[in-house]
């Protein structure tokens, strides 16, 4: 670990800490300890395509409903064609009113989430107020942009960001491409290798004015479909009782649904698939 990260062992706070400056943690880190930035960590160490050598997370789905937004991710992480982890976590709280999930390389993804969490908290403490939800979404863009060089070498991270907008009083979803461009999504969105199937399912399952419970069920159905057709997405693991991580963000803040609750809803989904393996049928007109 470099000396900058730990200046206090040898005395006073460095002058740069006492100089007024940016309220962005990532900016401060890039001046004080650039080696700690996820985008710099692997610089020079990487050559060629690493996508088959490192852990990859897969499908993240988010759905808005009148009271807020729900985000969930399957639990599988793959390394090439091996299932590397069955209980991976890919959905995290970003701060009290937002959550972030990611598909792509696990290592850089987890580091980016940590940096993003610290970024939001740092701003909140320095400025005494929280960033607007658009401000948070834009900060995440900035962090992904710094990761572009690694994305080119197969260490791409594609996040999905969602939160409760206090001023507009509704949940909002933002998606990103590997270059960091951010797009606001309406109603629902999915990222990752199983996202095509999940999004297809949600197109048929989503309807306006869903309850929180129905939103969670529709997401579990969508993830089931993703796992059904995409080898890198994990379905509900009934023998091990491992189920998707489900985060709910409302005006009351972030909360992760207890595994027992998710397990019950997942059981319902699986049971319904026993009679109709392709899931609920949507009316034709």
């Amino acid at each position, binding site marked *: *670990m470099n000396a900058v*990260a*730990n*200046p*206090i062992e040898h*005395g*006073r*706070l460095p002058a740069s*800490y*006492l100089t*007024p400056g940016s309220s962005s*943690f990532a900016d*401060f*880190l890039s001046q*004080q*300890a650039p080696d*700690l930035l996820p985008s710099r960590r692997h610089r020079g160490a990487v050559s060629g395509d690493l996508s088959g050598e490192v852990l990859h997370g897969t499908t993240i789905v988010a759905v808005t409903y009148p009271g807020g937004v729900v985000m969930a991710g399957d639990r599988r992480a793959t390394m090439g064609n091996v299932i590397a982890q069955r209980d991976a976590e890919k959905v995290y709280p970003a701060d*009290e*009113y937002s959550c972030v999930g990611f598909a792509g390389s696990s290592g850089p993804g987890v580091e980016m989430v*940590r*940096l993003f969490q*610290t970024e939001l*908290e*740092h701003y*909140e*403490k*320095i400025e*005494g*107020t*929280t960033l607007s939800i658009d401000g948070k979404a834009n900060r995440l863009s900035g962090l992904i942009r710094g990761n572009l060089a690694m994305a080119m070498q197969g260490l791409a991270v594609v996040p999905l960001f969602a939160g409760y907008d*206090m001023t507009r009083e509704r949940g909002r979803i933002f998606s990103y491409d590997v270059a960091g461009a951010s797009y606001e999504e309406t109603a629902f969105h999915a990222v990752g290798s199983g996202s095509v199937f999940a999004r297809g399912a949600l197109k048929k399952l989503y309807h306006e004015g869903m309850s929180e419970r129905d939103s969670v069920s529709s997401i579990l159905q969508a993830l089931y479909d993703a796992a059904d057709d995409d080898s890198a997405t994990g379905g509900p693991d009934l023998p091990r009782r491992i189920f998707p991580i489900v985060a709910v963000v409302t*005006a*009351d*803040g972030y909360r992760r649904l207890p595994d027992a609750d998710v397990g019950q809803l997942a059981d319902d989904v699986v049971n319904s698939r026993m009679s109709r393996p392709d899931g609920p049928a949507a009316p034709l007109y």
Partner: protein
Amino acid sequence: MTVPFYVSPEQLMKDRADFARKGISRGRSVLVLQYADGVAFVAENPHRTLHKISELYDRVAFAAVGRYNEYENLRIAGVRLADIRGYSYDRADVTGRGLANAYAQTLGTIFSSGGEKPYEVELFVAELGDSEETDQIYRLTYDGSVADEHRFAVMGGSAEQVADYLRSNYEDALSLSDVVRLGADALGHDSQQARTLTPLELEVAVLDRSRSQPRKFRRISGPRLTALFPEEETPADTGAAGSEATATGSSGAEPTGGEATPSAEEPPASESSD
């Protein structure tokens, strides 16, 4: 021919200490008190946004008296240090002792170096433990000395009078509303003639052990602070300040700051963020 101007080191340090003490004694006091659920900070501060009490990290908070620009600089440096440590190691590795040390070194070096004017500040750094016995409260003075405090501590203008009042009135394991009211009373006993402080003149924050989130710091302001002061105790006879307090206490009237109305809608979870 001029005689070289000589000042003895003792005199030099004494002058610098007098200078710092004078600056600090002009400000109002800040209290830190242990209570049933954690550590409470109470300050006399009519400003809504220029805080004397702030969050440094999950379980660590900061309070200061003295020159605003100086303690604000120290606060930001503390947040930066805490966040960079927590990010490069782990959240559990950010400690109140580490931060208090960094502040002590910084204040001490500045105080004894000839090049910089001493900081006119005093600080509290408090870390919430798992129980009352493991709470840590550090008090740092302008020259970098550190004291480890228990139960309660006072710094600022009339620290002695306020501490005297607390010595005879403080009890262990008070409830939140009792400890805040005691703090307000103590701050009012800073001179011969006791004053009564209204909630509008107070800045209150706690490190709350009962909070389920990892970040234990919580500001108490607006209606939530007013609610800690029962109506019958609000005095109506102390002039302008008193009448303001009565207005806040009665349900329909709006206080001058207009603070009560918007934050009444505020959900409980937002309390850490303002």
